[in-house]
């Protein structure tokens, strides 16, 4: 018989539990540095804190890049069909940013629930500000290295 009753929504931190950060940092990294940092950070954070929704979070996070690619291809098709013009393209491109932002918000909301409990039960919380600030200053160089300046990859990972 267990010494205590475990409530369904309580996180179960693993060996990496000491590296948990407030999910607001992965969200800001998502917005300021890009998908290349935000997505892996969200996934890592979810597993480190033992978030109850970590599978859902991971599934959603890995959908960002294919979803962006799909939207990018859709815009290309609409351009070819003359539905979109050069003048209206900047407006349509907002859709890609909105898609990424929406996924970031949903990931944040999902992870925040487990994080609040992780924090409440005295789990270790690291300050993610240093990684965030470093990503803001070095992010553009990193992403250029990662993509080799390829425009499609920049859109997908940026």
């Amino acid at each position, binding site marked *: 018989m267990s010494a205590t*009753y475990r409530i*369904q929504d309580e996180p179960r931190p693993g060996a990496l539990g000491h590296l948990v950060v407030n999910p607001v940092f992965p969200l800001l990294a998502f917005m300021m540095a890009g998908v290349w940092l935000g997505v892996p950070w969200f996934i890592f954070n979810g597993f480190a804190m033992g978030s109850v929704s970590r599978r859902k979070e991971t599934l959603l996070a890995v959908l960002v890049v294919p979803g962006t690619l799909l939207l990018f291809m859709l815009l290309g098709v609409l351009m070819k069909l003359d539905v979109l013009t050069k*003048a209206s393209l900047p407006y349509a491109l907002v859709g890609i940013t909105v898609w990424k932002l929406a996924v970031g918000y949903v990931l944040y909301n999902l992870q925040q629930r487990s994080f609040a409990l992780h924090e409440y039960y005295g789990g270790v919380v690291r300050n993610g500000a240093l990684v965030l600030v470093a990503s803001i200053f070095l992010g553009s160089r990193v992403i250029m290295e990662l993509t080799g300046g390829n425009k499609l990859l920049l859109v997908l990972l940026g």
Partner: protein
Amino acid sequence: MSDIPSFHWRNYAQIQLARGDHRGALETLRQGLAQEPEDPEAHALLSMVLLSLKRPHAAEHEAGIALSLEPALPLAHAAAASVAMARRRFKDAEQHLTSLLELEPDDTQNLLLQARFFDLTGKKERKREVLQRALSLKPDDPHTLVALGEDALERGEVKRAEQWAREALTALPEFQDGLVLMGQVYLRQGRVEDAREHALWALHQDATDEGSLRLLASIKARQSPLLGLWWRYAMFMGSLGDGKSTLVLLGAFVAYRFATQAAKDLGQPNLATLIQLVWMGLAVYTWVGPALFQRMVRQELETVRLDPRF
């Protein structure tokens, strides 16, 4: 805990819950359930506690366990209905309320839960009928009197609301919900200082009570128009829930980007810059606003002398 009969620790948890010690109640139930994991009443009670701690997913799970262990347990149906209402699953809530009222048709607490359901689903007349029925069953029940007062206040009948609040406080002096209602009445009448006194009086008994804190926050919002704007925005977003509030934020973002692009296309770079600055200002305001507002409320809370029983 292992030697203590389950009704003892359940009762203790209920007392903790009634005193506003939600976290204490949770720990009592957690320890009790470790010894007796198949106690349906404890699961139902835990569901109520989790709901009050804003953990609706776990609350739903616990209510489900309680119902699976004892399908005819009124407390389990009450918990399941409350959770369903909190998650805005009104069909489920209605089913559980029907079962609950079949089991205990004359319990005023159940009728008040049904009244809340009608309130949330916009059936105001039905709500009033149920409240009147609860009043006829127990004319001195302070919870019913407060619910009637809140309804009167919602309709703009401030004098009538004041009467209900007075009756509730006569039936049970220092009744926290009654004090909060009276504070709301005073706030509506523009008697901000009286409202503040009632909020602090209510908080004296339970410093974690949501209604009392909300009243105090409303008073602070009235005193500081700039932060009051943020409070109203936060209340609005909170009422929408995670999904809808995300949609609203994304909609605002799209509007901002479209407006900036349109200003550029129209050859108005200054306008585009202005829109960007306004957006940045809003971002900073909504980032800093909560911290400033919390500090203001916290300063006020520091003056509250807690009831020793709390």
